[in-house]
C-alpha cells in the first residue's frame, strides 16, 4: 500500500514538471492560436543555455535561472516580432510549418554544437536531499521544489492574465485581435510579449529539467508531446487544468513503469487517448476550441 502511495506521489510531483512544460505552450496558444511545434526544442535549448552559463560564470545550476530566463525572454520577443508575427493569419499551416522548421533547426543545431552526448546540470546537495514524510514515505527535495515552482508559475500566469493591464490586452487580443487593435492595443507587441513570457516559463522548465535528469538535443519532441498531452487532458485554456493534466500524465507514467519498465511512456499515451475518447474537450475546458 505504502509503495503504491509512494509511486503515485512521485508521479504527481513529476506532473509538476509536465505542467511547467505545458504552461508556455498553453499561453502561446491562448493568445495567438499558435501551436509552437518547436516548444520542446526550446526547453532543451534553455537547458543548454543554462549549461553554458554555469560553465562560464561558475554560477550554481539554480542561480543560472535568472540569466537564462532573461535571455529566453529576449529570444522569445525577437522570435515573435521578427518571424512568427509574419505567419499569423486565417491559415493554420504557416505557423505550424515554420515552428516545425525551427524545431528541426534547433535540434540539429544543438547537436552540431554540443554533440549528441547526454549532459546534466549538477545542483550539489539538492540532487540527493530528500524529505521524509513519515510512514516510509519520502520524496526528493528537488521534486518538491519542481512541483512548487509549477504551482507558483501557474498562479503567477493566472494573476498576470486576470489582474494586470497586459493580461487584459492578452485576453482582448485573443478574443478579437482586430477589435483590440481599434482600441489602441499594439497586437504585434502583445504577441511578442506573450511569446517572450512563454519562453521565460520555458527557461524555468528547461533549467529544472536539466537538474532533474540528463538531457540531449534529441529529447525536445518528447517534451512537446508531454506538454501537449497535459494541455489536452486538462482542457484547453485552463492553466490549473493543465497542472491536473500534468499530474495525471505523471501518475500514469509512474504506475506504468511499475507494471512493466517499458510501459511508462505507453501508459501516459494510453491515458491521453482515453481522455480523448471519453472527454475530447479535456477535463476542465475553458475555451471553445
Amino acid at each position, binding site marked *: 500500500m505504502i509503495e503504491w502511495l509512494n509511486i503515485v506521489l512521485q508521479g504527481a510531483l513529476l506532473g509538476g514538471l509536465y505542467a511547467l512544460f505545458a504552461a508556455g505552450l498553453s499561453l502561446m496558444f491562448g493568445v495567438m492560436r*499558435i*501551436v509552437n*511545434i518547436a516548444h520542446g526544442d526550446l526547453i532543451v535549448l534553455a537547458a543548454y543555455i543554462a549549461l553554458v552559463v554555469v560553465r562560464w560564470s561558475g554560477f550554481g545550476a539554480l542561480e543560472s535561472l535568472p540569466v537564462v530566463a532573461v535571455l529566453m525572454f529576449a529570444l522569445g520577443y525577437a522570435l515573435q516580432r521578427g*518571424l512568427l508575427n*509574419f*505567419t499569423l493569419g486565417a*491559415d*493554420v*499551416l*504557416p*505557423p*505550424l*510549418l*515554420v515552428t*516545425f*522548421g*525551427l524545431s*528541426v*533547426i534547433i535540434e*540539429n*543545431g544543438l*547537436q*552540431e554544437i554540443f554533440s549528441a552526448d547526454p549532459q546534466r546540470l549538477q545542483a550539489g546537495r539538492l540532487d540527493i536531499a530528500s524529505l521524509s514524510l513519515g510512514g516510509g514515505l519520502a520524496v526528493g527535495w528537488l521534486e518538491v521544489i519542481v512541483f512548487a515552482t509549477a504551482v507558483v508559475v501557474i498562479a503567477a500566469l493566472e494573476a498576470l492574465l486576470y489582474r494586470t493591464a497586459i493580461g487584459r490586452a492578452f485576453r482582448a487580443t485573443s478574443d478579437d485581435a482586430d477589435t483590440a487593435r481599434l482600441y489602441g492595443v499594439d497586437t504585434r507587441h502583445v504577441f511578442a510579449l506573450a511569446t517572450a513570457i512563454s519562453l521565460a516559463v520555458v527557461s524555468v522548465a528547461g533549467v529544472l529539467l536539466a537538474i532533474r535528469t540528463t538531457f540531449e538535443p534529441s529529447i525536445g*519532441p*518528447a517534451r*512537446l*508531446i508531454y506538454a*501537449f*498531452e497535459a494541455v*489536452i487532458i486538462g482542457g484547453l485554456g485552463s492553466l490549473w487544468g493543465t497542472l491536473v493534466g500534468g499530474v495525471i500524465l505523471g501518475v500514469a507514467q509512474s504506475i506504468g513503469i511499475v507494471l512493466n519498465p*517499458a510501459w511508462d*511512456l*505507453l501508459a501516459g*499515451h*494510453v491515458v*491521453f*487517448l482515453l481522455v*480523448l*475518447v471519453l472527454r*475530447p474537450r479535456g477535463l476542465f475546458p475553458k475555451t471553445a*476550441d
Partner: protein
Amino acid sequence: MASFRIERLTRASRIGVALIAAAIAVLASLPLWAGSGTIRLAVEIFYYLALAECWNLLAGYAGLVSIGQQAFVGFGGYVLAFLTILLGVPPLVALAVAGPAAAIVAVPTALLLFRLRGAYFAIGTWVAAEVFRLIALQIFSLGGGTGISLPVSVVLAISDSRAVRDLIFYYIGLAVGLGGILMVFFWLRSRQGLALTAIRDSETAAASVGIDKERSKLAVYVIAAALTGFVGALAYLEKVRISPDAAFSVVDWSADVIFIVVIGGIGSIEGPILGTVIFFVLRGLLADYGVAYLILLGLVAVVVMLLAPRGLWGIAEKFDIHLFPVQRRLRFTEAGSATPGLDPKIHGVPGRARQ
C-alpha cells in the same frame, strides 16, 4: 448570351503531358543504362516522391497537417516483417498486404485523431506514431527495441539474383512513385477532389450543398495511409533490416517529406515532384556534413513558407502554368460577347480559387 466552353487542358498542361510521357520513357529504360547505385538511389527517390504526394494530399488539399505519417511507414514495414518472418508469407504477397493493412488501422486512428483540430491534430498524429513505435518495441518476436533483419531465405524468395531483385524493386518503386502522382491526380479530378476543393474554399458553402466534410477527410487520410504503408513495406524489404527507432523516425519519414512539399509547393501536384528533386540534390551536395542538410532544409523551408507560401511551384503557378490538368476553367469562345466583369478567376470555378 456568351458562349463558352469548359477547358481542362491548357497549352502548358499539353506540354506537361508530353514532358511527363518523355520522363516516364526515360525512367522506364533507366535500368538498361544506369549502374546499380543509381538504380537504388532512384528507388529511394520514388518512395519519397510517393510519400510527398500523400502528405501533400493530406495537408495541401484536405487541411490535415500530419507530423505522424511515420506511423504508417513503420506499420507497413512491421507488417512485412511479421508476415514474412513469423508466418512465412512470400515477400511480394506480404508487400501487397501492407497497404490494405495500413488502411484498416488508419480508420480507428483517424476517428480518434479527428477529435483534435488544426495544429493539435498535427501533434496528435505524432503521439499516434509514438504509440505505434512503443508497441513495436514490445514485439519481442521481431527483436523488440533492437529490431530484426529479414532472413536470407526471405530475400532469396524474391529472386536469387541480386540484379533481378534490384530490377523488381526498381519497377515497383517506379510504379509507386508514378502511382502516387496518378492517385492524387485522379483523386482531385473525381467527385472526391471537387468536394475537397469546395471544403478548402468554404466549409460552410460545401456543407450547404451536401458535402460530408468528415467523410471526405477520412477517405483522404485512409488512402494516404494505405500508400504510405505500402512505401514502408517496400522500403524495409529493400533495406532488409527494421527497427522501431528507424521505422518510426520523425526525421526520416516526416521532416524530410514535409520539407520536400513545403519547398516544392504545397497544394499542387507538381510541387512535391520539384521538392523531391531539390531535396535529393541538397542531400547529395551536403552528404559529408552530417545533419547540416537538415538545418539547411529547415532554413530553406522557413524562408519559403514566409516568402512564397505556395512553394517554388507556386511561383510558376502565378504565371498560370499547370502541368497536370486538374482544374476546370471557363474560356469564352466569342471575343467581345463575353459578359463584362465575369472573370472566371473571381467567380467560383471549381478548382480554380486559391489553387
